[in-house]
Every structure is written in structure tokens, then in C-alpha cells.
């Protein structure tokens, strides 16, 4: 009856947290940030093999576990908590959702199987929504610029939303090493999540699904919901960090957490985190039960959760004082993740106005 994750999902959480504590700790995170690639392929493969992480959104007949959005939410929450650098949002949130939503079973099967066994995937488009993508498929070649592609340089399976001969938007696939394709890594505000600009100059493409605009928009809504779960995980973690510091940092002869200014601010963070958690898991539950609910739910959740994470990450820096402002301390990594996540799939304001429209409040 509850919309919160069930016992199986919580068990997965325990395993995953242990795995990440062991293999994706703070030291490795810092090492990863200095590398060209946005993830650790060994870690990625182990997570796929040992925990089945890459197959959670793949049907069982293709080797996945088709665990449902609530369970995926738990995984994203944990990845957000650990600030894991991995192309999970691109591969599972975006590309897998796109394939499942847009492609027929036969077309989808090899791609989902590849993803399940560890292939990194992403979706490229140009514009606010995939259905409005300004990339053009003329005949069998794509031309245009996708200015911000999640994990665009790491992706082995590159999906593209392109307007087919000036008509509807279709889902295509291009080879990452195809002629005419230029992938340029960008300096991202959030160094834990890589993005690339991809230039398409008549790049040969395979059509996967025609007239897929609505399906791809749905995939983006699903990705936004999973991102929201990731944001909750991060917000929960910065609250932990703030509380730990407030318990141990002594000023004026007592822990700063004994001062109401700090204590009440932590309490406000707790309220924000738990309200966000309620919203997100309810939304995932609702979208699991009825995919058509995803649009409204993602719009409803997005503004609150994005703003709450930024507020908590900034409060964490404030509570840490100067040390929280240093490069050395992890507080800023969360702040940047929060701030970038807020901007990733449209602004909080845009999401609220969209939710109002979908609720029928604005008419």
C-alpha cells in the first residue's frame, strides 16, 4: 500500500551502499575527477555484474530485472548520496527509457542487452524537449549541433533525436566513431558529471523509431524523476555532513550544533530532505502504476526537489564555514551537483508552470 520503497528495494540499497563505500569512496572520487573519462569502467562493469545495476530497467527476458521505478529511485538516491561519477543517468535514466518507450521489442532487444551487460549509452538532441529537437535527419544522415550531451564522450551507444525530413522527430542511432561526428568535452560546473557538445556533419544514422517525439519526451520525464531521486540522495548526504560537523565543531566552548541558529537550520534541512523524499517516491510509485502520470509527477517534483537540494548544499557550506568553501572539502562537489542538476532538465520555474498547466490550475 505504501508509496515508499519496499523491502527488496531497501535490501538492494544496503548492498549498493556497501559496494559504493568500498569501491567509490572519497579518494577514488577525487582521482576520478582528474581523469579524462567521466567514469571508472571497472567499477561500472562490476556494478553491472555483481549488482545487476545496468539491467534494472531491462526486461527479464533480455537478462535484466525490470525492477520498476521505485527500485531505480533507491539506486539513484544512493548514487546521488555517494556522488558517484558514472554515466548512470545517461544510460539508464535517458537512453534505456528512450529505447523502451520508443522502440519495438525487436529493435530494442540488442540495445537493452548491451546496456545490461555494461554498454554506456546516451541520448542527444538539440532543444528543450527531444520532440522539439533541431537536429535534422535528411535521408540517412544527421546534421546539426547537440550543445549539451550527457556523457557524450563516454557513450558507446549514441542515440539521437532528429527531425526526419522536416517532419516528426525520430529516434536514430549513430556510431560514436562515424565520419562527420565531432565530440567535444566541456568544462562542466559539476565536475562529477560530464557533458559534451556533439557536432553532426551528415553523420550516417540508423532509424530506430519514427515519430518518436512523445515517447522521447516521456523518457525525459522518467529521467527527470530518477534525477530527482539522485537529488534527494545528495540532499540527505549534505544534511548528514552538516550534522556531523555541527556535532564536532567547537566554538564558544560548545559544539556549534547546540546553537539554535545551526540546530534549527539543520532541522529545516531535515524537513526539506524528507518532504523531497516523500514527493519523489510518491511520484515514482505513481509513474510505476501509470506511465501517463510521469509528465505531471515529474513537473510537480522537479522544482521542489531541485531547489531543496541547492538550499541544503548551500546550508551545508554555511554550517561548515570557511572549510566548506575549500576545494579540499567535499561540500562544494555536492553544491555543484545540486546547482547543475537544477539546470539540467529545465528550470524549477518552468517545471512549476508546467505542473500548473497539467493540473489545470492555470486555466
Amino acid at each position: 500500500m505504501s508509496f515508499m520503497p519496499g523491502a527488496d528495494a531497501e535490501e538492494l540499497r544496503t548492498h549498493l551502499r556497501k559496494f559504493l563505500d568500498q569501491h567509490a569512496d572519497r579518494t577514488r572520487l577525487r582521482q576520478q575527477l582528474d581523469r579524462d573519462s567521466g567514469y571508472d569502467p571497472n567499477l561500472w562493469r562490476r556494478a553491472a555484474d555483481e549488482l545487476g545495476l545496468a539491467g534494472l530497467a531491462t526486461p527479464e527476458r533480455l537478462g535484466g530485472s525490470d525492477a520498476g521505478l521505485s527500485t531505480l529511485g533507491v539506486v539513484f538516491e544512493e548514487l546521488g548520496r555517494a556522488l558517484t561519477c558514472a554515466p548512470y543517468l545517461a544510460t539508464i535514466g535517458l537512453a534505456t527509457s528512450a529505447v523502451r518507450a520508443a522502440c519495438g521489442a525487436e529493435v530494442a532487444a540488442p540495445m537493452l542487452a548491451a546496456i545490461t551487460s555494461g554498454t554506456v549509452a546516451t541520448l542527444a538532441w538539440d532543444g528543450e524537449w527531444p520532440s522539439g529537437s533541431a537536429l535534422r535527419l535528411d535521408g540517412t544522415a544527421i546534421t546539426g549541433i547537440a550543445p549539451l550531451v550527457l556523457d557524450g564522450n563516454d557513450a558507446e551507444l549514441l542515440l539521437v533525436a532528429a527531425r526526419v525530413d522536416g517532419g516528426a522527430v525520430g529516434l536514430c542511432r549513430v556510431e560514436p566513431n562515424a565520419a562527420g561526428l565531432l565530440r567535444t568535452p566541456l568544462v562542466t560546473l559539476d565536475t562529477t558529471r560530464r557533458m559534451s557538445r556533439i557536432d553532426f556533419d551528415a553523420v550516417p544514422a540508423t532509424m530506430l523509431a519514427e515519430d518518436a517525439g512523445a515517447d522521447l519526451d516521456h523518457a525525459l520525464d522518467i529521467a527527470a524523476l530518477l534525477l530527482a531521486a539522485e537529488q534527494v540522495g545528495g540532499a540527505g548526504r549534505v544534511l548528514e555532513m552538516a550534522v556531523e560537523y555541527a556535532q564536532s565543531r567547537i566554538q564558544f566552548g560548545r559544539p556549534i550544533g547546540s546553537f539554535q541558529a545551526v540546530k534549527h537550520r539543520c532541522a529545516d534541512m531535515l524537513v526539506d530532505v524528507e518532504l523531497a523524499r516523500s514527493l519523489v517516491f510518491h511520484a515514482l510509485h505513481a509513474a510505476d502504476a501509470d506511465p501517463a502520470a510521469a509528465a505531471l509527477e515529474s513537473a510537480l517534483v522537479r522544482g521542489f526537489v531541485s531547489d531543496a537540494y541547492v538550499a541544503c548544499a548551500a546550508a551545508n557550506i554555511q554550517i561548515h564555514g570557511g572549510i566548506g568553501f575549500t576545494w579540499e572539502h567535499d561540500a562544494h562537489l555536492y553544491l555543484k551537483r545540486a546547482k547543475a542538476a537544477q539546470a539540467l532538465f529545465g528550470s524549477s520555474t518552468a517545471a512549476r508552470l508546467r505542473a500548473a498547466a497539467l493540473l489545470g490550475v492555470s486555466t
Partner: protein
Amino acid sequence: MSRATEAATEAAEAFLGEHPVGPTSDQEQRGARFDAGLAIVHFDTGSGGRGWDAGEQPAVDEVFLRAGCPDWSARNVIGLGMAAPTIHAHGTEQQRRRHLRPLFTGEDIWCQLFSEPGAGSDLAALATRAVRVEGGWRVSGQKVWTTLAHVARWGLLLARTDPEQPKHRGLTYFVLDMRSAGVDVRPLRQLTGEAEFNEVYLDDVFVPDDAVLGEVGGGWQVAMTTLMNERVSLGGRPAERGSGAVGQLVAVLRQARAAGRAGDAELDRVMRLWARAEAARLTNIRAGEQLRRGTPGPEGSIAKLQMAESNNPVYDHSMELLGTQALLYRDYTETRPDFAAVHGGSGDVRYDYLRSLANSIEGGTSEVLRTVLGERVLGLPPEPRPDKDTPWASLRRS
């Protein structure tokens, strides 16, 4: 629906088959329901319950409400919400027998005599004195913020029996007969114009020994049971998405938009408030589920703080959307309602706005609730508290 819940529903339906709504008075029917153990189902047999899980209560209530039985929760909010669990947890067999049935039937309305002019957030500092006399106690002092005292038959009274003890330790909990000589109930008018609350003056009131609830000197522990249930009850029951205060807000927004007085700026603000209220509603549902599973978490306190804090902004913004209609008021004539409506819903946004100003004060100020969350949930260290171990009589007080 779980098997236990199915059984609960069936039992309630079976009872209604035998005791249909209509032939008897509501009070008689509630009496029979109590005797059948379908009043407060997790209470003991003979005390109005069947020893079931508390989580089955909503299903049972639902059956009775659907059959058209009146909802007494606002009319006897202290009785049902606080007196019942406190008496059930701490009362003697005699006290349970004396009080629980008429409380449930609505024959006895209850009130809570805790707060005093000098003891608000710092309840444990209260000054009402109970002095031991032959066969009982003589009580003098002043209580305030007493909802329903003007219609109450009984009061939950917290008084100081030993001023030489530190403040939490010298208190005793009594059940006070409101008809006792020396009890003077006076209306306390609020800024809404209503006198929803009362002041209760106690002048040498005799309270017999068998009215002590729990141990003499153990009043604080008993009061905790009462207050924990206040948190739950003020937190409210799960509502539908978009109902309640935000429902009114959306209705006012629609009017304002139709009149050309509200654009995207107002819409954006409404949606912020809407999402927060929805999040609080869902968190409240989580709190209920946790309670039912027997693993109460922080969700209840979080939802309570959030509802205390979010109701006023919702009505405040509704007032902006009202335009010049916000300049007027319905009526400031003093009235004395005999039910408690905390979170608005009068249908008049202006009254509800004014009433909402108390939401962050009543049932624990938001400041106290934040401290509770910080210390008990997050484990942050307390402030230096020299008042905790000092004899009450030596404390600095208002």
C-alpha cells in the same frame, strides 16, 4: 488491503448490521460500538477496543463514517485525541471504566489544563499548585488556551505538587471535574473575534485522591503521552491531494485569474506552496504508515512542523489573490465555537488567514519543534540548560 484490515472492516460492517444507523440515538449507538470493542481498536477489551493494531483504526472509522455516523473528532478533540490514550495508558481500571465510555459516546467533553500565562513553550515551569489535604488535594492557579473548557465535563490537569524538586519532577497529573467548586471558566477572545479558547481559574479546588492519573510526582511522564498524541492529532489526517488550504488557494487563484488579477508570478508562487503542501501531506501519510508498522520515525514531527509553517503562507498568499476583498472581514462579533478547527477550512480565506497565525504557536511553537527535530531526530547537542536541575522554587520565571 491486508487481511487484518479486511477483518476489521468486516467486523465494523457486521456491527452496523446489528446496530444500524437511525433507530437509536448517535450516543446510544456509540455506546454499543464501545461495548463491541470497535471504538478505539488498539485499546484493551472492555476499554473500547480489541487489542488490535492501531493501524486498523482508519478502516473501522471509514466504515462508520460511510454509514453516516457523525464525526466527533472536532467536537471532542481533546477527549478522543488526548484523554483517551492517556487514561488508557496510565489510568487505573476504575478510571478507565469511569471515563472511556462517556468520553467516546460524546456524553463527556474534555479539555486540557496544561498551559499557563507563565508556562508556554516551557510547560514544565507551570506554577499551578496542588497541596495535599485530607482525602485529596487543593488546587489553585490559572490555566490558559483551554479549548472547549466552556463545554467540558472533565479536564486533564497538570499541577505542581512539589516546588522543591526540579521542574520536571514535582508535577502530578489529575483528572479534574470541571463542575468542582472553585473552577471558573472565562472566554479568551482571539484576534479572529472568536473566543475559541478559555482561561480557567482554579481557586482552592478540591480534587480527590482517586483523580490522580499515574504517580504523584510523575505527572511529566503522563503529560508526555498526552502531548505526543497532540502532535499526531494536530498533524491532521491524510487528506486528498489538492484539498484543504491549498484547495482554497487554487480556488482564489482561479477567481483572480478570471478577473485578470493574477499572471505567472502569482501562479508560480501558488505552485511552490502547492508542492510544499503536497509534500507535507505525503509525509504525513508516511508518518501514519510508520505508526501502523510500529516503527514511528521522525516523519510525524516533520509533517507537524511543516503544516504549522506552511498553512499561514498559503492563506497569506490567498489574501493577496483576493485583491481588495482582503480589506474587509466577515464579522468580529465575539462567538464561542464548541468545536476545534485548527487548520482553516472555514471557507472564508480572511478568517482562515487570521486563524492560521496561531498554527506556528499552538501545539508547540515552531521554534520548539525545530529544537525537537534537531536534538531528538538529528542528535544535535542540547543548549546549556541550567534550569533543568534547579529546584522549581528557585527558578527565574515570567
